[in-house]
């Protein structure tokens, strides 16, 4: 029972990264647009995100609900000891959602437009960074309820090299996702070339950061490499992901519509998420060694059976409602480029 609920939790988180993360990526790409054709790029990003970003965002809410209903201790511990980065995430979510909407509806003056764009871009970067850092704090094992100082209680759990590196890594992954998705949103070869370059930088960034993360974990007494070796799935994901990275680099130079590159890009990120989840399982939260606490597993944190049964039922019904409607949403608004769409509208 617990495992099935965990699968739903994992799915919501994975979807949040794959879809919501791409929306963050859209903002991250806007941070470094440069001057060349930046308005066109912005238009594509806005156009791609506008109909779907709110739906994509709700995967996070679903994950939070599963957490506090199914595993309340994980939720309350995290929101106590990790409240600072979590609040940073919330701040970012509010800022970027509002800025994006306001940019869409309130663009009568150029100065407003620039302000909204800037807030949207930087808060996307900020939010994805803190999301990464926060999730890394669950596994690194620096949470210490016995600590006596403010920094020991609330800063050390996440303000460390490992978490910060994972934060940057998350930013790269989001940018990677966004650039491969966006390649399919336009048929302008120049713009595709720009997204291609962004995808390449993002993939190089994540490839460089990967070993750094393992190293940082090792230095902080988390034998991440050993965990990966012990865990068949994680190891497999890691191996396949590394191989795919090479294929991905090659496929980037293929002519549009670049389906291979897009599939590889999404696969790589998916593998990273899966590897991560299996490396973490069944632990929900690792405490600092000096705290003397037993690491919190999902099994120990789980709500009573009667609750889980009802939660699972609700999730199943929810899935039956959500997936078909989501499929319809994507069917209507994806699978055609901005230019194709505009051509369609001209005859009017």
């Amino acid at each position: 029972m617990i495992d099935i609920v965990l699968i739903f939790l994992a799915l919501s988180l994975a979807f949040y990264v794959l879809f919501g993360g791409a929306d963050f990526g859209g903002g991250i790409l806007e941070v470094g647009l440069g001057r060349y054709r930046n308005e066109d790029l912005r238009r594509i990003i806005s156009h791609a995100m506008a109909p779907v970003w709110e739906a994509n965002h709700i995967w996070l809410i679903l994950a939070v609900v599963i957490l506090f209903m199914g595993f309340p201790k994980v939720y309350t511990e995290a929101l106590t000891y990790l409240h600072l980065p979590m609040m940073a995430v919330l701040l970012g979510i509010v800022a970027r959602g509002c800025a994006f909407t306001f940019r869409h509806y309130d663009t009568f003056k150029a100065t407003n437009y620039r302000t909204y764009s800037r807030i949207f871009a930087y808060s996307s970067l900020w939010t994805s960074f803190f999301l990464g850092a926060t999730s890394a704090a669950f596994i690194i094992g620096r949470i210490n309820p016995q600590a006596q100082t403010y920094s020991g209680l609330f800063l050390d759990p996440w303000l460390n090299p490992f978490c910060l590196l994972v934060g940057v890594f998350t930013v790269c992954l989001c940018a990677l996702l966004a650039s491969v998705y966006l390649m399919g949103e336009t048929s302008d070869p120049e713009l595709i070339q720009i997204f291609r370059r962004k995808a390449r930088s993002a993939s190089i960034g994540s490839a460089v950061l990967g070993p750094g993360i393992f190293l940082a974990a090792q230095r902080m007494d988390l034998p991440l490499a050993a965990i990966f070796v012990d865990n068949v799935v994680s190891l497999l994901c890691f191996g396949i992901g590394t191989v795919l990275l090479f294929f991905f680099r090659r496929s980037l130079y293929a002519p549009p519509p670049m389906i291979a590159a897009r599939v590889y890009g999404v696969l790589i990120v998916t593998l990273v998420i899966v590897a991560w989840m299996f490396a973490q399982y069944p632990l929900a939260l690792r405490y600092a060694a000096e705290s003397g606490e037993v690491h919190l597993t999902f099994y120990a944190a789980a709500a009573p059976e009667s609750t889980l049964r009802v939660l699972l039922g609700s999730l199943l019904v929810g899935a039956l409602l959500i997936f078909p409607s989501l499929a319809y949403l994507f069917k209507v608004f994806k699978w055609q480029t901005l230019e194709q769409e505009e051509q369609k509208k001209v005859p009017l």
Partner: protein
Amino acid sequence: MDNLLAARMQMAFSLGFHIIFAAIGIAMPFLMSASHYLYLRTGEERYRTLTKAWSKGVAIFFAVGAVSGTALSFELGLLWPKFMDLAGPIIGMPFAWEGTAFFLEAIALGIFLYGWDRVPPRIHWVSGLLVGVAGVASGLFVICANGWMNSPSGFRWENGRAFDIDPWAAMFNKAALWQGIHMIVASFEAVGFAVTGLHAWLYLKHRLPLHLSALRIAFVFSAVAALIQPLVGDFSAKSVAERQPLKLAAMEGHFETERGAPLIIGGLPDVKREVTDWAIKIPKALSFLAFGDFDAEVKGLKDFPKELWPPVAIVHIAFQIMVGIGTYLAAIGLLGLWLMWKKPLIFAGTRWLKVLALTTPLGFLAIEAGWVVTEVGRQPWIIYGIMKTADAVTTRPGVAFTLALYLLIYGLLIAVVTLIMKRQIALLHREGKQLAEEGGHR
């Protein structure tokens, strides 16, 4: 400022902010769909313009509401971890459903907003309506959870721990039904009068026929809601009288336990002297309203230990504001419907439109006051009779700091949203003028 007070203020502020957006998300899509329906039916361009203008409002408010709602789902844990530890497994289910409804709402809104000329008109219309249906559903689910805090059920309480958890019984607690209906009707009433009032005001200023069409649609919704509300409110109060006699006593500023209790209108409760000064008293009316019997016994505050009293003055005054506004709006609704039916010229006349323009903020004021009654009236409990608010608050330091941060950000958001709505109205005004000029030739 100590953690408890800061946390309570932060929660009050966030909820007070979010409830405005939630109410708009519940009612506005129905107004939009009504106008959309009229457009599809008549093909008149003004209804299309109106539908689009309203849907932009829905989109802006939905986005801000969605992100502030996300913040709330974290805030519960940030501020009240011990409450969530206990409540999560018991009352998490309606939240899971709310998440689902919210999801569908976001999907339907995406299809509606960007689906003009891209999806078949019928599906397009249904998607707009679904935004509202999902909004109503999520509202009801969240209120189930709030009702549970007023009337906890679905578990056995022993030695400070919950056993035999039954999430269904928790969700369908005694408070949920009337509280939920009360709030849904209130949303239609508040949003309806706000939209009516706004368009009345705009019509008075610019004399565009578009505004008259808009306010006619909105007024029908608000008037019907305002006429239903006193009845629903009465059932709600009866339910409070049965479950939380202490809250009822505070609402009424009623200190003495007595048979044939009078209804106390207005006045200022003085907790030290245990009397409510300067009030109008209607003999036996409270007994009748609360229990349907002029001689029924109504418990007074004095019957309960003083440390369990909520802040009586706040609850009483908030309740008076809510009921006062509700009564006034019901009268306006009745009169307006009659005018619409019998005297359409007076309905569109300057004097009546001025009356309507003045109602713009009233419904929302009543909603805020009503939530003050529910939430402050439950104090000192966070879960009535089970857990005190003071015992649920987080132990981490610095809540006052986050409170300041929230105030700053939400204040900024309110300012920006107001500004944007102003510009949207200016835009609508331009379009409406164009339409009126074109229409002149036909």
